[in-house]
């Protein structure tokens, strides 16, 4: 999309009925490094790619525990993501304190979406520049939601956001029908394989990804590097030939430390605050 005279203000409609500022905020999500979520009936796995600004720095935290039964993975402006995670933790703990019962994740995402919507209808605010994959439990089992800057939320069996997420989505689209009954281990394997898709040729190492799991009877926790590496080892030995990536076929691993990932073609500068 290109600059036009209706895109300065979030409270200005375009003649075609669009709010450009909101759409630009959704672009920010696409610039961040990938985050992936998938769920079975009883478990949710959230995984993300760890990208550091430089070799000298550590990578940014993109997966947050909200409560024992809810976790969130973010892509986009991580500062906005951190603030929203704090809000979610606050909601969850207040509910827990008042009712001694875990906040159903479906209700949390509605609160979150309503909060995001406010920012699309105030002239002195801007939309949050972060997409959130919220995984959690409620009375009917495990759920995965995607909250976007527009204030919309959707429920998914599996989803990926951030740069090169299309590759992961293609992989997930092929496999998602079996996720409902998957075991936890299979779900983790699929998550890591989906992460691998977004790396597009780069060798998959456990240091490059963060994986978290939560489920019925299993509180939210991160998998340690060893466990992730073990899963990687089960399939890295057999190089899969036709995980067909659309478009660019980079022969060698693109230097990942080159400040920020551009997602796809036609990309402008990447602002330093984005990951």
């Amino acid at each position, binding site marked *: 999309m290109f600059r036009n005279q209706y895109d300065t203000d979030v409270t200005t409609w375009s003649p075609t009925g669009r709010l450009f500022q909101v759409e630009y905020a959704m672009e920010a999500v696409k610039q961040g490094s990938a985050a992936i979520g998938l769920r079975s009936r009883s478990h949710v796995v959230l995984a993300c790619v760890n990208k550091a600004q430089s070799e000298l720095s550590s990578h940014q935290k993109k997966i947050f525990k909200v409560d024992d039964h809810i976790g969130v993975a973010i892509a986009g402006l991580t500062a906005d993501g951190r603030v929203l995670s704090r809000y979610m933790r606050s909601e969850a703990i207040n509910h827990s*304190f*008042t*009712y001694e*019962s875990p906040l*159903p994740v479906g209700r949390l995402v509605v609160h979150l979406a309503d909060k995001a919507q406010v920012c699309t209808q105030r002239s002195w605010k801007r939309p949050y520049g972060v997409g959130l994959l919220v995984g959690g439990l*409620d*009375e*009917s089992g495990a759920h995965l939601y995607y909250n976007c800057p527009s204030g919309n939320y959707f429920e998914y069996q599996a989803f990926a956001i951030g740069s090169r997420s299309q590759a992961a989505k293609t992989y997930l689209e092929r496999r998602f029908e079996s996720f409902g009954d998957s075991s936890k281990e299979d779900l983790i394997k699929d998550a890591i394989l989906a992460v691998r898709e977004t790396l597009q040729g780069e060798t998959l190492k456990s240091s490059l990804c963060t994986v978290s799991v939560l489920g019925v009877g299993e509180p939210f926790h991160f998998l340690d590097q060893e466990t992730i590496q073990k899963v990687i080892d089960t399939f890295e030995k057999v190089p899969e030939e036709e995980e067909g990536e659309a478009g660019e076929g980079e022969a060698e691993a693109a230097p990942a430390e080159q400040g920020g990932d551009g997602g796809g073609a036609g990309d402008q500068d990447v602002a330093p605050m984005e990951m």
Partner: protein
Amino acid sequence: MTFTIPIDNGDAVKNAEADSQRTLYPYVTGTSIVAIKYKDGVLMASDMGGSYGSTLRYKNIERVKAIGKHSLLGASGEISDFQEILRYLDELVLNDNMWDDGNSFGPKEVHNYLTRVMYNRRNKFNPLWNTLVLGGVKNGESYLGMVSMIGVSFEDNHVATGFGNHLARPILRDEWRADLSFEEGVKLLEKCMRVLLYRDRSAINKLQIAKITEEGVTVSQPYSLKTFWEFQAFHNPTAGAQGSW
């Protein structure tokens, strides 16, 4: 005509609470509630009396009410505060239902909500003058708990309020079992209520027993207990007390 107790808390400039009042005493009160867990859920018994001090003024007060799909609330103490609590819970249940998302508040959530409300009021020195009994069944699990006007809250297999604590609980401690059938449970509660009827002066002989199971709530029609007054000792009560005292 409204009657307010005149209070002088000084001038409104220096005292922020100059014209506000706090709960000092209860006026229309209900007496004990007795409740037990049994095989299929929870049974709760109460009489239908509302006393105005020592006068048995109201004889048709329902002190046990269904809350949502899964809970039963019984209250002793100030009846108007009980009605206020019912309004709070009405709002709670309404908002819960409006989500329409398959999740619903069970007895544990309602109990904890009430605990928060009661404790917060106590901290402001403006309590809701009740002792509440919350029972329910959700997902096959029975729940029975109590909250007092000062926010003391706990769960147990059998609970009672007021005089029930002194007269009914000992009976329940001896005779309660986890696998009581409905008939046995009712009989046990009636035994407790009969003792309360004999010995609690605020009790009246018109009671209701409410049952909650996975299927839902049923509150019985009011009925009365058979009493026996032909004990020898009552025939000539002053026989052993001749003389001036």
